[in-house]
């Protein structure tokens, strides 16, 4: 380890390269997997989303992840019809089109927040002192993340703004009062301001003709009704031409990840390249250092160090440097992971944790240590072959 200390600058650069490679490898593999699982798991306990004719991905992103725009509007009767299918356990209409300071206002029925389980056995809960809105009221329930960001609490009032993007000049006249704040769910629900669906439908300035329209319907099928999804898919997507059913809802988002998998491959290639460069840096720094250290090695040998001892010292130096890089890599990974997680939650509401166990968090550091070990072999051989008598001057 003295050698590492002696060559502070080059060692620090090499350790940083190893840390970067290790953190990139973990981010690309582990964090990406976590993102996929979190996004697929953030389908909010729904099996399907019914929307106007259009892209399934757009419908899912709009209705479940509260991203993107709705491809259009559908009739209230479409929602009512969906509730009547025997295999449908519950269906909830959504209407979108307004925001409050960039956080989306979504209209729905109170039963959604009251009865629905967004994950197995987990219902929405309000922070103490809060209550849900009643249909037709001017009340709002704010998702945990949005409440924190907007600084909203029970009793606060606000004016909605028109559109999905915040525009100071597009303020609606209506005033809504916050009656409740939801506890964090780690799903996109957290970044939404929920109001009664009639609020969106009849907001001042909205087209009166659309006063009964909805943007999408979230559908939960009864347990064991796996064929029902297929039947609804046939009915809406194959036989019908007015509406689109995104079923299964989470597969749509996974298909989206598949579509952008080429980007993963680029990231993977970059990470692998950085790992190789880090290995090359270890090799170069130690190999060059061997030229400066021939005398030291010769002295150690003169003091009785065996050839395999100096070989191991050199090899351990490479492993030590890699190990330091790997430890730093975990710190960088945690920092980047939390930073990215914060951005993802702000943009999507999906909570990502960089600390969820993943095989990549084992093989990436071990792989880097392997690269470090391999990179140390050549300098170690050079140390092993040092001519003692020639270098003892």
């Amino acid at each position, binding site marked *: 380890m003295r050698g590492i200390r002696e060559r502070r600058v080059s060692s620090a650069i090499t350790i940083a390269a190893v840390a970067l490679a290790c953190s990139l490898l973990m981010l690309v593999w582990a964090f990406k997997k976590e993102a996929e699982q979190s996004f697929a798991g953030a389908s909010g306990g729904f099996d399907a989303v019914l929307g106007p004719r259009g892209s399934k991905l757009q419908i899912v992103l709009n209705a479940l992840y509260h991203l993107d725009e709705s491809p259009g509007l559908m009739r209230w009767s479409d929602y009512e019809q969906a509730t009547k299918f025997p295999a449908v356990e519950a269906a909830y209409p959504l209407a979108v089109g307004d925001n409050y300071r960039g956080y989306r206002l979504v209209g729905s029925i109170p039963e959604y927040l009251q009865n629905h389980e967004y994950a197995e056995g987990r219902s929405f809960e309000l922070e103490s002192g809060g209550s849900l809105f009643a249909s037709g009221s001017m009340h709002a329930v704010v998702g945990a993340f949005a409440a924190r960001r907007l600084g909203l609490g029970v009793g606060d009032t606000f004016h909605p703004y028109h559109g999905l993007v915040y525009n100071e000049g597009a303020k609606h006249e209506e005033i809504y009062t916050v009656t409740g704040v939801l506890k964090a769910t780690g799903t996109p629900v957290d970044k939404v301001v929920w109001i009664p669906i009639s609020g969106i439908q009849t907001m001042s300035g909205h087209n009166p003709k659309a006063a009964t329209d909805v943007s999408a319907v979230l559908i939960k099928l009864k347990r064991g009704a796996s064929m029902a999804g297929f039947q609804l898919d046939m009915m809406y997507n194959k036989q019908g031409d007015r509406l689109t059913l995104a079923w299964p809802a989470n597969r749509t988002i996974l298909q989206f990840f598949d579509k952008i998998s080429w980007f993963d491959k680029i990231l993977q290639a970059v990470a692998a390249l950085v790992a190789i460069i880090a290995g090359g840096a270890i090799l170069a720094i130690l190999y060059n250092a061997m030229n400066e250290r021939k005398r030291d090695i010769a002295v*150690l*040998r003169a003091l*009785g160090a*065996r*050839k*395999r001892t100096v070989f191991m010292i050199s090899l351990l130096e490479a492993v030590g440097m890699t190990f330091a890089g790997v430890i730093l890599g975990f710190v960088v990974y945690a920092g980047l992971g939390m930073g990215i997680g914060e951005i993802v939650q702000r943009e999507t509401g999906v909570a990502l944790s960089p600390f969820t166990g993943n095989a990549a968090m084992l093989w990436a550091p071990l792989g880097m240590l392997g690269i470090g070990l391999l990179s140390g072999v050549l300098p170690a051989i050079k140390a092993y072959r040092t001519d003692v*008598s020639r270098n003892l001057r």
Partner: protein
Amino acid sequence: MALLSLKNLSKRYLSDRGEWTEIVRISSFELDAGEQVLLQGESGSGKSTLLNVIAGIVAADEGAVTLDGTDMRALAESARDAHRARSLGYVFQNFNLLDAYSCIENVELGMAFGGKTDVALARKLLERVGLGERLNYRPDQLSQGQKQRVAIARALANRPKLVLADEPTGNLDPSNAAVALDLIQSLCRENGTALLLVSHDPSLKDRFERTIDLSELNEASSLLPGSEGLS
């Protein structure tokens, strides 16, 4: 029985021109335990090669090198290393301290490959050579004379049977050279360690019980060009 015995020793090197050149040829040489011998020789007389052969750093091509009852030529390289770590101390003209290590760590290195590291002994040796206040100094914080004193302490750290000193005063001014020589000789005496010191300085002759002219001992030296590279 002699501590060190050389019999019909020969060491050759392949020159850059592809010719084998004999650098060391010694018919017979013996050094008793605790004895202090001065080998006098000029550059090119094969003195460094001879010391490296005795230390087992390079293997002799012919003949026998017996140190403390062990035939060095019969040992494999790793066994020679181990034998050197246990039985020999080495003092160099250029001190050869490791710059990344403190004084006390340099002395500890002298014992590290021979078995147990004794920090108390390392401290005691440095105190003995007058560097008790500079245990944690690094070599670049020491004068030339102080560096050589650390090197002397290191050479004695493994309680060797024999100390080899290769021009130990070559880089020192006269007063530091005298201090260094006093220390090497007195420490060897105190520890019952034999000393084989190589120097070209004729003024050292009076300090030793026995002085040998290397050019007479090494029958190959008369054939060698006076090159530093073969020293």
